């Protein structure tokens, strides 16, 4: 066991990458002329939030991570002109579910927390617990990066 563990790779691109993606998505939004009527605030908020997540997923590596792939898939449910998903051989699903069933016997403390985590992290439903934790680590890094970018933007744009 000692040898075969490669170090977990959770490298996340710099803040600039996230910022560029986010600003691009925002400018796309603005060209849609949403910002004229102030009573559609909720709609605007939802759009901006979705744009934030999608740009974060893009900046974080597109379809190369499980969570970003699931996020993008969820976001472009009907109309997929944004992202191209690679054709991967899907594992037979019954295998995954049988793994999950067995995992209920393994340290139920860990597994119930893992269940809550699966609901939070996009794409967590089909992952084993160890894989889930890897994805969570990368997801946390990307989320914090995105939060920093958005905070900077808000601070810069807010009136003094």
């Amino acid at each position: 066991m000692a040898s075969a563990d490669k170090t977990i790779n959770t490298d996340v691109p710099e803040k600039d990458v996230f910022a560029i993606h986010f600003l691009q998505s925002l400018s796309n939004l603005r060209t849609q002329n949403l910002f004229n009527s102030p009573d559609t605030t909720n709609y605007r908020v939802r759009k901006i939030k979705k744009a934030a997540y999608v740009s974060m997923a893009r900046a974080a590596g597109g379809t190369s991570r499980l969570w970003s792939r699931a996020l993008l898939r969820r976001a472009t449910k009907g109309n997929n002109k944004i992202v191209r998903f690679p054709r991967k051989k899907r594992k037979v699903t019954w295998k995954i579910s049988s793994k999950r069933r067995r995992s209920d016997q393994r340290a139920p403390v860990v597994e119930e927390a893992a269940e809550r985590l699966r609901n939070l992290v996009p794409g967590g439903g089909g992952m084993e617990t160890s894989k889930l934790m890897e994805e969570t680590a990368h997801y946390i890094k990307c989320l914090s990066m995105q939060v920093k970018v958005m905070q900077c933007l808000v601070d810069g744009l807010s009136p003094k």
Partner: protein
Amino acid sequence: MNGAIEADLLLDYNTDMSVLERQRAHLKYLNPGFDSPLAGFFSDSSMINGGVIDGFLGTDGLNLPMIYGQTTVEGDPRLSISPETMIGTGNFKKRKFDTETKDCDGKKKKILMMNREDEVEEEDEKSKLTEQNNGSTKSIKKMKNKAKKEENSYSNDSSKVTIQKTDYIHVRARRGQATDSHSIAERVRREKISERMKFLQDLVPGCDKITGKAGMLDEIINYVQSLQRQIEFLSMKLAVVNPRPDFDMDDIFAKEVASTPMTVVPSPEMVNSGYSHEMVNSGYSNEMVSSGYLHFNPMQQVDTTSSDPLSSCFNNGQAPSMWDSHVQNLYGSLGV
């Protein structure tokens, strides 16, 4: 429950070092006067033993019982010294051993010790400790002799694994452990999970004070939730703040180069660090108030000086070299 926690802690400690490192540490045991790799380990395990080491070592002047005392602390579950040979403070270890075998049956991966009866038998001065010392030194010698062999096999395995991804990771069962494949695979899986938990522990702030998998996982879940909530609030803020329609690009560049970087307001720090429930509530109220205030003036004019902090807060003092063209385009599109 306590036993389970204890065993859980032991699990974490034992997976601190990989099997290889443990072997190397054992090699160094034989050199007297060595204690550095163990120091950290003892500070952890002394928590459990609560001074057992001190009591044990204080009575002996011999180096070997000291080694024994040390090994039993961390090596106890692995060297599987039979409980009935323990003495005095050993009953503490015995209890630990029992809880461990009870709770973690087949859960720890051990190196299978081959019986080499022809190995060195050391003579001891203290008769009481003879049996245990023999057992421990025998096992130490075995590990030492097997160390090289294990290293080779492990390196072979690693090279095999890197070449062929479909190859299996060869794992040996430890002495005294169930050797069926299920428990071994279970153990491998456990170690993977603990390793990743440690990684997450470094990532999430404030997690180093919490021991135990459940608490840490709760913290991680809270952290992820708080990050997602922050994004939601920031997007709300962004929705109500409108940039000024016309940006003067030359003006922006002149000011961007000349201006000093704006420090990020402490509020993100407050929100970031206080992701526990109480703090988040106070962070919420701040966000609500400010966004509510902003909502009253949705179309207010933002003067050009605000665009300087925008660019400078992204750059944060770095030279805006690669940014120039991007920023230019984006500011232009934002103004539309």
